[in-house]
């Protein structure tokens, strides 16, 4: 980032305005040169605006009036008039362009810088941190919050220029006439104060409207997502009623915003006009007493016209400060969050199937309750092992540890005898692949989603898809592997997404493959084919892959050479499926749940049939 003096600190406490100015100081510190440039341009603009007024006064007294009084003029006088006004206009235009471009460059550069920092932080912070924050919040931290933190940057150079402009104008007015200048000293502060009051009144109203917009959107999202339930229960009218409430509240909030605007706008617009009338009145008196010229009156009046609008920029900056501070605080919460995994230097050099040693793993999401309480097991290279356990027994947590998304609180996980924590960054991913239950696909082509930017020829991609039983549907997509995921008409079903995620793992020929219920959304028939394909692929001539699969379905479990039964945070039993069924009643109960259910139905049906028979017998008797 920067090797200069550390960033200015934004105080944690204090008034919004004070903290807001501190945020502005950070902005200036981050982009000092762009800021200097745009402020210089803005000051040029301010000076030229005042010069416009001065030029008119000068021209009135020195060119126009004499000419009109004499009934004659010279070429030189007219030429100086034209070149004066054109020159000022051109310089002013340069100032405007420079100020606007400078402000834009500064605002968008700051946005980009902070977006980069926030997203880097997202990549660095541990998965647990991610789980503690809703997705929507994280996305808006990187987008809307960064944007609002730097909102006041857009009008900032103009505001600084306006301050300069006011200084020049005051000087020019005093040079013209003290009394008229005093009118200015009364009116300009009033315009400024009116602006600040306006912005401060408007802010909460605008914020409320913004919140209500979010409410409206939330109801619409929810109601449309649950459309099937709404429709099948005939609740359309009630849903419309539910939508009407925030909609009408938003309507009223918008009307309130407009009322505030309607109230203040005429005041802010009108004040400089009232000022001009006052200047005319005072000016005529001063001219009569011979202490001012007509040109002075014209100059001051014209200045009022020119400055009336730009002075609003001060209000814009001050008005945006509260929003900016909120955005800044939200962004800082991400940037100052600590955590992240440390990496070692070791490499995994072996080429065949991996060996996995898990010893004494302890882990809990809540302090008082361990999810895993001392898990020990070993998987020999090339074996396929199923892990079975009731919901909440920590199976998924186990898989996230194997891929080092999370570190255990106690104990060690070793691949080929090397502790995962001592491996170099990125080293593990070359050997271990995890396929989770919910398949995440990137906004990319099917190919990109499988290769993830890796260098895999198409044949390998197709091979992986074939084993994952995804080659068929991918071939039928409009552009095959080049089809973009999520584009219109190519929305994929849950099962199809899972198959792409599986192919993503397979194409890497991992030495340890971890499947966390990765085929749950696939039709049972298709799942059977995937499992068969996987079995022959990973256990061909030379087994090159060790497989750990989390499974519910019996067919999935049957793929395994061995079964680990995880219960109450420990490996409760270990052995082949048949062995476990023999020796562990809990295991038997779990895997037999489906069958039991089917049997129960059977019994009930038989019972019902008997009752029917009894009924008919009774009836015939």
């Amino acid at each position, binding site marked *: 980032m920067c090797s200069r003096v550390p960033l200015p600190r934004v105080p944690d406490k204090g008034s919004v305005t004070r903290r807001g100015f501190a945020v502005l100081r950070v902005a200036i510190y981050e982009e000092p040169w762009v800021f200097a440039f745009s402020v210089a341009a803005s000051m040029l603009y301010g000076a030229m605006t005042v010069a416009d007024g001065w030029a008119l006064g000068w021209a009135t007294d020195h060119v126009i009036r004499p000419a009109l009084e004499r009934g004659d003029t010279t070429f030189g006088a007219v030429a100086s008039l034209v070149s004066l006004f054109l020159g000022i206009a051109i310089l002013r235009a340069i100032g405007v362009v420079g100020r606007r471009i400078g402000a834009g460059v500064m605002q968008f550069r700051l946005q980009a810088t902070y977006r980069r920092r926030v997203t880097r932080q997202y990549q660095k912070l541990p998965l647990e941190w991610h789980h503690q924050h809703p997705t929507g919040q994280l996305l808006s931290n990187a987008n809307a919050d960064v944007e609002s933190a730097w909102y006041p940057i857009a009008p900032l150079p103009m505001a600084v220029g306006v301050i300069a402009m006011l200084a020049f104008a005051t000087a020019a007015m005093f040079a013209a006439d003290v009394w008229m200048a005093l009118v200015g000293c009364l009116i300009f502060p009033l315009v400024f104060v009116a602006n600040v009051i306006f912005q401060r009144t408007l802010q909460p109203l605008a914020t409320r409207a913004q919140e209500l917009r979010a409410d409206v959107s939330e109801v619409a999202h929810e109601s449309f997502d649950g459309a099937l339930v709404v429709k099948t229960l005939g609740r359309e009218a009630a849903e419309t009623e539910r939508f009407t409430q925030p909609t009408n509240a938003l309507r009223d909030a918008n009307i309130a915003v407009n009322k505030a605007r309607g109230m203040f706008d005429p005041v802010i*617009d009108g004040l400089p006009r009232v000022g001009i009338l006052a200047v005319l009145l005072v000016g005529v008196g001063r001219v009569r007493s011979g202490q001012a010229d007509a040109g002075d009156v014209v100059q001051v009046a014209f200045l009022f016209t020119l400055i009336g609008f730009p002075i609003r920029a001060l209000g814009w900056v001050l008005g945006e400060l509260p929003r900016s501070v909120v955005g800044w605080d939200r962004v800082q919460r991400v940037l100052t969050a600590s955590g992240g995994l440390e990496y070692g230097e070791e490499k995994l050099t072996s080429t065949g199937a991996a060996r996995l040693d898990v010893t004494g793993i302890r882990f809990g999401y809540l302090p008082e309750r361990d999810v895993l309480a001392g898990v020990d097991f070993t998987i020999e290279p090339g074996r396929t092992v199923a892990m079975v356990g009731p919901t909440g027994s920590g199976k998924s947590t186990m898989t996230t540890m194997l891929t080092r998304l999370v570190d255990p609180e106690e104990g060690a996980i070793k691949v080929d005898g090397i502790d995962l924590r001592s491996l170099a960054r990125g080293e593990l991913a070359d050997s271990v692949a995890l396929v989770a239950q919910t398949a995440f696909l990137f906004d990319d082509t099917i190919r990109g989603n499988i290769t993830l930017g890796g260098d895999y020829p198409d044949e390998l991609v197709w091979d992986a898809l074939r084993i994952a039983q995804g080659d068929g549907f991918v071939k039928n997509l409009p552009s095959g592997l080049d089809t973009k995921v999520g584009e219109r008409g190519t929305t994929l079903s849950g099962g199809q997404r899972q198959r792409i995620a599986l192919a993503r793992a397979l194409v890497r020929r991992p030495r340890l493959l971890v499947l966390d219920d990765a085929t749950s959304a696939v039709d049972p028939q298709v799942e059977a084919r995937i499992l068969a394909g996987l079995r022959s692929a990973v256990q061909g001539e030379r087994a090159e892959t060790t497989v750990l699969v989390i499974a519910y379905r019996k067919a999935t479990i049957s793929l395994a050479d061995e079964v680990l039964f995880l219960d109450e945070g420990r490996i409760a039993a270990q052995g082949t499926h048949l062995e476990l069924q023999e020796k562990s009643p809990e295991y038997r109960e779990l895997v037999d749940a489906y069958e039991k259910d089917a049997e129960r139905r059977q019994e009930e049906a038989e019972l019902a049939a008997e009752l029917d028979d009894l009924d008919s017998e009774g009836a015939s008797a």
Partner: protein
Amino acid sequence: MSAAEATRLDHGDDVGGMETLRQGLRVSPELARGWLVTGLLALTMTGGRIVIPIAVQQTIDKGLTGAGGPDMSYVAWMCLLCMGGILVTAFASYLTTVRLATNSERGLATMRIKAFRHVHDLPVLTQSTERRGALVSRVTSDVDTVSQFLQFGGFIFLVSLGQMFLATIVMFVYSWQLALVVLVCFLPLFASLRYLQRKMSAAYGVVRAKVGEMLSAIAEPVVGAQVVRAYAIEKRTQERIDASIDDYRRTATRAQAITGITFSIGGLAAGLANAGVLTAGVLLGVDRQATLGEILAFMFLVALFSDPVQIATQVLTDAQSAFAGWRRVLGVIATPADVVDPGADGVVQRRGPITVEFSDVDFAYPEGDLVLRDVDVRLEPHRRVAVVGETGSGKTTFAKLLTRLMDPTSGAVLIDGVDARSIAFSSLRERVVMVPQDGYLFDSTLADNVRFGRPDVSDAELLDAFESLGLTDWLESLPDGLMSPVGQRGESLSAGERQLVALVRANIADPDLLVLDEATSAVDPGTEVRVNAALERLMSGRTSVTIAHRLSTAEAADEVLVFDQGRIVERGPHADLVSAGGVYTHLHASWIAQRSAP
């Protein structure tokens, strides 16, 4: 959904501005309320803007350089008059803003609600999940764009136009020659306005597209945190993000530069006009054809002229997108609903045992092949029917026709002998209830969710409904019982628990015909047993049709309907079909292979 409908939902009808206005007024009549008074007020409000140039001219010509030297009392009276004018103007301005805002916001709220209600009648909402986001935009951001435009651009622009018009008139009254000079000086700006505006629109169009790309890139390490880490593609992900962030920065800066240049051109034109007016004014004044006051008043008039021209480019760009948004919302409202409630004319049926008959039913999606053909079947009351078939065999379509989520292309679905299309929705939805695969839950309490179909039932009745499905122990295991929050989409509950809630919800609705779309996704065995027990109790005493994905369901049914390529190819009890050697025998065999693997 047909291609034409898709276009309409995305872009609105391709009609001209006047037609959109007509449609818009029909949907929101509030927009035109009291327009005459508002118009007069707006005119008064703009009138106030030309007070100052006139005051300047009067002061200089009559007050300062008049025959008898500076005339204090004349100026004082005139200033007082102008002051009154400014006050009236300010008041008119307040009234105009409030009236316009109130009417337009009321009109937009009406339109928003109408669109929302109508979307629920559109088949696309339940047929294609990927279009839902777009439909949400129709009732949210599209309407917001119109509202924001009216707030920030619309009023100002209207007033500015009036201001320019009045300024032009005053200029011609003072001096037609100087007025022409001003117009000529602004001519290049007018000529380039359209071009600049188009460039600006295009630039902001690119910016919007880049924002979208940036957002989806930023979402990757957040939504896909696990994959990004597990595959160690942090670097690639960050590169994609950085590239998109930079792309956005570049295009946004460019758009800003174009805006800056456009604004400065307005200032340049004003400078040119000032120089022109002063030069021409001096030349005219020398011939006594213009007074000093008139010449100087022009300087103030030019200022009135240049501001609107400068903001026009920006406002026109906003206006375009606001208009497009408005047209899209109106397009949604104009899209015909294909399943229509017969309303007051509808038949209201008596509750009780229900018979359903499909009479020669065909179904095809618009511009698509038939997905259901020649379906002719009668389901007797109190029967338990399972519908089986491969994916795409038409079994889901069958269920949707049964519940009237869609209407047949030809043929009819009869309920107790009455065409479903002529039964009032309120009656039909009471008798026939579908439990979808994923029982969607709203972000509220458990109680609110189960009484969704009938908000008036008491807590005691709710508890009975849990009890009768054998779920009291489960309910008691939840920390806050009925008041437990379920989270967004019910995510605080497991998939199996969500199914339980959906079943209780159906139990509360108490339909005569229950249509179940059996869940395919894995539920842990413990909950599975519970779900099945609850289902069993829910179905008893009712007619039920289940889209079966599991063998056990088909086995337990009184009757199995086997679908293949849109037809019912076999029908009968499980025991008969399993040995018939047909489609069902084949399906059954693969189920068995799946279930009884060693």
